[in-house]
């Protein structure tokens, strides 16, 4: 048995690889998914037939399959996972995720993976360091107050008065609010910029703590469909996994009983995500859907419209939708932001 590192965007291996995966029941080869792959390993027998394969996309293991004649005792499986964790370590990733079917949960747990969340269709597991426990210990707020602890998760790309309105509702009805800012580098505003603008915009609300969403809240690692144009079905199961992860791991560890979201009239992805939260969270966590705050002209305030205004250089038109801190930042950085918009015409910006 020999192992080869291949690039599946290369036609020579693409066909061989995809056919092998399809014969093992793995589908979903969208351009965005293939683009995310960093490296693929193929194990071949003496005749050059594929025995097993696995890929790495950042710190996520993907497209892992083993020929059914080589599954006994899990020997090949352990070799494959071992090899991929080594490749990931060489790339500086010591913390890995895998999405898999629920029937393979045990196989991954057998090689040291911990279950994070599962739904009837899919399971999410992690291995290595730091773990979700480290993440939760790091963000846990030592509050002595008693009362409702709430959570909001937002991308805030950038932070608007609409976001502010949602935070105010939660702040008013809670003893403590965890405000998670989604970590990703695929939005127009960088993670640090988004977080700083959120912090500046809520600093007068003393019971709101702004924390990093890390790899566990709508992150490109665990919820890629939120950022990429993916299959509706894939987006749906990832949304349910994200909701389960929040319910099973994050809420109990931080004592969160309530979650606030804004209603979503425009984006289908966000609307589906809200729907998944509504299906998964209650009764453990109460979901509050707050109607979106309206702008002076009667339309709902949306970050999408702010980004459009940045693109067209019409900042004054959206001034009334923005806290002074965000407006000042946009004004000072307009040329940089416009340059980012023209160089990256990606979806999600």
């Amino acid at each position: 048995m020999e192992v080869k590192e291949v690039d599946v965007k290369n036609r020579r291996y693409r066909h061989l690889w995809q056919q092998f995966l399809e014969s093992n029941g793995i589908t979903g080869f969208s351009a965005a998914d293939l683009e995310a792959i960093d490296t693929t390993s193929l194990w071949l027998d003496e005749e050059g037939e594929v025995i097993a394969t696995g890929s790495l996309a950042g710190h996520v293991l993907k497209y892992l399959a083993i020929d059914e004649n080589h599954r006994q005792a899990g020997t090949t499986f352990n070799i494959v996972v071992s090899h991929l964790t080594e490749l990931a370590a060489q790339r500086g990733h010591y913390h890995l995720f895998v999405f898999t079917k629920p029937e393979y949960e045990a196989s991954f747990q057998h090689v040291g993976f911990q279950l994070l969340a599962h739904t009837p269709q899919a399971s999410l597991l992690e291995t290595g360091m730091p773990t979700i426990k480290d993440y939760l210990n790091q963000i846990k707020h030592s509050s002595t107050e008693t009362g409702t602890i709430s959570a909001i998760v937002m991308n805030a790309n950038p932070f608007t008065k609409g976001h502010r309105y949602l935070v105010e509702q939660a702040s008013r009805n809670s003893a403590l609010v965890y405000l998670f800012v989604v970590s990703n580098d695929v939005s127009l505003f960088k993670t640090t910029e988004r977080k700083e603008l959120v912090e500046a915009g809520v600093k007068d609300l003393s019971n709101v703590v702004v924390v990093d969403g890390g790899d566990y809240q709508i992150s490109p690692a665990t919820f890629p469909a939120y950022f990429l144009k993916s299959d509706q079905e894939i987006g749906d199961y990832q949304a349910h996994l994200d909701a389960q992860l929040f319910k099973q791991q994050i809420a109990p560890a931080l004592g969160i009983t309530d979650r606030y979201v804004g209603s979503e009239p425009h984006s289908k992805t966000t609307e589906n995500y809200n729907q998944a939260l509504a299906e998964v969270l209650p009764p453990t966590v109460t979901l509050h859907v707050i109607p979106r705050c309206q702008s002076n002209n009667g339309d709902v305030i949306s970050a999408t419209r702010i980004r459009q205004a940045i693109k067209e250089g019409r900042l004054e038109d959206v001034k009334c939708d923005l806290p002074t801190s965000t407006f000042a930042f946009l004004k000072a950085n307009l040329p940089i932001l416009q340059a980012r918009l023209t160089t990256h015409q990606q979806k999600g910006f």
Partner: protein
Amino acid sequence: MEIKTTAMAGTLESSDIQITISAGQDGINIDLDSSVASLYGDQIKKVITDTLVATGITNANVKAIDKGALDCVVKARALAAAQRALETSDQPAWEVF
């Protein structure tokens, strides 16, 4: 000695152990995953701790996934991971053995 980077050594194959070491604060904390933990868990942790201490590490978070490794294998993997974490792989610490 100060841990400079997270590092890993070993595989998940039978008779091996995969050890990952990262910087820690209070002593050497080992998270061991082993099917023989109830029988040999304490012994495996002792070998890892002794090896790390011998390389001068006093604070570390360690994750170990054991697949039935013998003591000599545990020691070799712990040493390799430790030296990678300390970035001293070019100065093999033979005396640790």
